[in-house]
């Protein structure tokens, strides 16, 4: 008897009043509205304006007119082909270096650091509290021609006096690898950390040695993290201009520098926008490719 008395009420509970249903449907939108609105206004809309500006012609004095001037793209890419090549070369080298440096360290912390895992991860991230500009200047000081590293070696004539590290592609690439290191380290560590230890144990029980366990179990499972790291390191490294400014020389200019100069010094906004938009298209292509294979989970969770 009691059950039948309760029944209509719970049936009513399953279908709340219209006002409540509308409120429930609206809640997520009300929650995301301020943040999403901010991103729409100051991130998505600017990208639209970047695209529009890249198709304009004119100059700072006479003003700019929108006339679908695709010439900015071909002109910019031809004029700065060498700088684009530098960006790809140094950015690529930096990504590779960051991967080679980060993967074994992340692997050791995730699998062998035991109870001190969290402490090691924190230590690895601590240097990045200091401003990026100061860190890069410190590298410049450390690697300078007669600095704390090369000076003593030159004094005892281990190195010839004209030996340089600064102004070489290696200096720029390692500077970039250093700058964006956390973006490589964290996704790789997260994907290694997530691996179910029982898989490793069962591989061992099935007579795999450590190398085989790594090759057939751990490495394949860490691939989403590796690709996320490559993406998150490579994209900003390609366009950076601070490292090249402090650690590079006249022969190592990258496109990021050109874009910044065209905006701030030459005020050739259409050309600068076209160069920047080339990067945006490249980024979109890489993200779409990544999303196709792995989804967005590795990039935004953990």
């Amino acid at each position, binding site marked *: 008897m009691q059950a039948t008395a309760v029944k209509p009420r719970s049936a009513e509970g399953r279908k709340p009043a219209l006002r409540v249903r509308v409120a429930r449907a609206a809640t997520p939108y009300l929650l995301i509205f301020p943040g999403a609105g901010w991103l729409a206004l100051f991130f998505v809309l600017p990208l639209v304006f970047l695209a529009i500006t890249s198709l304009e012609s004119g100059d700072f004095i006479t003003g700019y007119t929108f006339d679908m001037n695709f010439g900015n793209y071909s002109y910019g890419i031809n004029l700065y082909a060498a700088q684009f090549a530098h960006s790809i070369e140094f950015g690529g080298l930096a990504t590779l270096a960051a991967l080679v440096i980060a993967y074994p360290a992340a692997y050791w912390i995730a699998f062998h650091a035991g109870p001190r895992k969290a402490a090691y991860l924190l230590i690895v991230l601590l240097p990045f509290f200091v401003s990026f500009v100061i860190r890069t200047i410190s590298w410049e000081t450390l690697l300078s021609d007669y600095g704390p590293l090369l000076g003593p070696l030159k004094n005892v004539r281990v190195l010839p006096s004209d030996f340089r590290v600064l102004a070489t592609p290696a200096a720029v690439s390692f500077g970039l690898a250093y700058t964006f290191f956390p973006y490589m380290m964290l996704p790789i560590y997260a994907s290694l950390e997530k691996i179910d230890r029982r898989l490793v144990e069962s591989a061992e029980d099935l007579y795999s040695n450590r190398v085989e366990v790594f090759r057939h179990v751990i490495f394949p499972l860490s691939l989403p993290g590796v690709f996320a790291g490559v993406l998150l390191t490579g994209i900003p490294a390609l366009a950076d201009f601070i490292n090249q400014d402090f650690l590079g020389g006249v022969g190592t200019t990258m496109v990021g520098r050109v874009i910044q100069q065209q905006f701030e010094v030459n005020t050739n906004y259409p050309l600068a926008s076209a160069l920047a938009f080339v990067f945006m298209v490249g980024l979109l292509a890489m993200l779409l490719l990544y999303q196709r294979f792995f989804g967005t989970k590795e*990039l*935004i969770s953990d």
Partner: protein
Amino acid sequence: MAAHVAVRQRPRRLRLGSWVLPAYAHLVIVWLFAPIIVMIIFAFNDTHGKFNIQWVGFTTRWFAHPFTIQSLTQAVYTSLLSATIAMVIATILGTMIALACHRYAFRGRAVLDSVLVMNIAASEVVIGSALLTLFIAFNVPLGFLTIVFAQVMFSIPFVAVTVRARLAGFDPALEEAAQDLGASPFQTFFLVTLPIILPGVLAAALLAMAICLDDYVITSFVAGNTETFPLWVYGATRLGVPPQVNVIGTFIFIGGVLISLMFAVARTVANRRVEREAAQA
């Protein structure tokens, strides 16, 4: 039993991990700290010229007067103010996004996710120049306000992602229980949800503060004549970076270390309490 032990020990013959890997990991840590150590050492350099590159001698006088350069002090103040405002706004907006994404399935969520990922992955030069074209198109005067607009924008995705990671382990039954007991949605949020996700929200706020204080590229595009700390330092490199920059950098580093230690201790204490309560139960 003996056979089992033999099987378990067999893989251990190939022990690459025994010393090569830990040595490598510690070398990486040395590499990561190299520029920080240089920065701290040169904060004690008794340099007299404009350039603080050659080691002259030991002094602590820069620590006695870290704020003697007025424009530098002003830049530090601007940085702290803009980063604090941006942190508060971004933490609130980012947490709201994280809550919506955790609790509701809604139309447009995939688009929102893509925008967040793009914002995190995009090159700063691209974001900065895009913002500049927008501000130029609408004749927005560049300065403190545009810096805050930009810093909130690039902090929101990091906050949303960090808080979402914390929410992943959150049991929705707790909220339902509170509402069954008659709590309003606001009471539920402030008395149940917020206390539980607070460590994640605080971590996200710290992260937002850190990236705002640190940012050079995007800020430089939208700053106009306003100078933040990284902008001041970058401008100073042409004339020589004064040791005061190393002193302030050292303070920032020590602040970061202290805050992380506080977090680590708080987490350890919380974990112990949970374990103790579990043991009692």
